[in-house]
């Protein structure tokens, strides 16, 4: 009798555990990369390196990695050796807390920090072709790895601010990121489905731009789209948004260079 009760309890517990895990699993799998929202022709373009236009920027980035610059005539390779080993898990950790500036910075800003402080040469303009190419090359080395921003207590206030920005209504259309990308993801907007806004492939080759561009460029496009004055390129608000988006996408696979409509 006791054994039967025990077995019933065991069964109920196991079932409950399965349901809980099933739900938890389903919830974590409900996140979808922008890749999933694209039509098959665009997906095919991304999947095949010989058809992915973003690979041109990876190629260019590789050349820049090996190019000497500055008063010491140092290249990235001088300190970092071969990128496919030294840069393997790097891009997925960004944005990171920068010791010098005492605030988070993204990968492009980090590259510029290296240029200024270690190569002793002028930083590149944000979103310039060279900077984008090198950023694409470095992020490409982490392709296939899960997005894993550093867990740094100093980032917490910035992460909180990023979440606030994400949920804040803005522009003449008075829309927040959350309203489109959390509440209306999957529904149509201007001929294409609204994606969930996970930064799974930056820098991306965007068909609309006909070139590779940064996450900040995309965020500024969105802000213009809701008729808001976009934050300036490199603004702290944009980095905080990038930080929040990276945390929100933790565990999703990096696809750089992604192709997006």
């Amino acid at each position, binding site marked *: 009798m006791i054994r039967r009760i025990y077995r019933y309890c065991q069964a109920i517990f196991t079932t409950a555990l399965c349901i809980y895990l099933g739900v938890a699993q389903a919830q974590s799998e409900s996140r979808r990369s922008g890749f999933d929202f694209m*039509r098959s022709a665009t997906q095919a*373009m991304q999947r095949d390196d010989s058809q992915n236009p973003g690979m041109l920027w990876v190629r260019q980035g590789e050349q820049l990695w090996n190019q000497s610059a500055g008063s010491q005539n140092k290249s990235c390779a001088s300190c970092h050796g071969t990128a496919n080993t030294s840069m393997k898990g790097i891009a997925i950790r960004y944005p990171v807390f920068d010791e010098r500036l005492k605030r988070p910075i993204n990968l492009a800003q980090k590259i510029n920090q290296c240029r200024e402080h270690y190569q002793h040469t002028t930083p590149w303009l944000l979103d310039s072709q060279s900077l984008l190419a090198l950023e694409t090359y470095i992020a490409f080395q982490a392709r296939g790895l899960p997005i894993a921003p550093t867990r740094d207590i100093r980032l917490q206030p910035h992460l909180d601010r990023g979440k606030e920005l994400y949920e804040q209504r803005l522009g003449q259309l*008075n829309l927040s990121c959350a309203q489109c990308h959390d509440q209306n993801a999957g529904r149509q907007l*201007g001929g*294409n489905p609204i994606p969930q806004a996970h930064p799974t492939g930056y820098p991306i080759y965007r068909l*609309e731009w006909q070139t590779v561009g940064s996450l900040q460029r995309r965020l500024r496009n969105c802000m*213009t789209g809701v008729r808001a004055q976009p934050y300036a390129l490199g603004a702290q608000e944009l980095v905080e948004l990038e930080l929040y988006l990276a945390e929100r996408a933790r565990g999703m696979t990096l696809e750089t260079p992604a192709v997006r409509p």
Partner: protein
Amino acid sequence: MRPQAFHSTRRQFLVTGTGLAASVMVRPADATTEELSAALRTYAAGAPVQAGRVKLDIAPLIDNGNSVPITIQVDSPMSQVEHVTSIVVFNEKNPQRDVVKFTLGPRAGLATVSTRIRLATTQKLVAVARMSDGSYWSDTVEVIVSIAACLENPI
């Protein structure tokens, strides 16, 4: 260049798009379709252009008219005596009819070529192959474009 009409209500915005969607200066359908027929006639130098032997592969619905993958395959042995000498693609409603002209020969081995093109709006595309025996064969496809190329500036 006509500026985009800015919609004041959120509902209108959601229904009609981001404000970057196609507001293309499309010329009257007759003018461009006539130009397409003329382009075909010129290329074929008056010879009849028959439907068949050519397959123009293109996704019927595309994400963005700025970059549309196409593949053209022509049924031909590609031998010294019987082969495709050229493949041409024409469009119906872009600012200009020509898209691309490929020159082949028996060395090609296979009359299959691919590229990516721009489409200004929903329209017909025609691929025409000229054979070594002087005959012309074609395939026509209708493509639906929701976000257009050619006339807009991305931000």
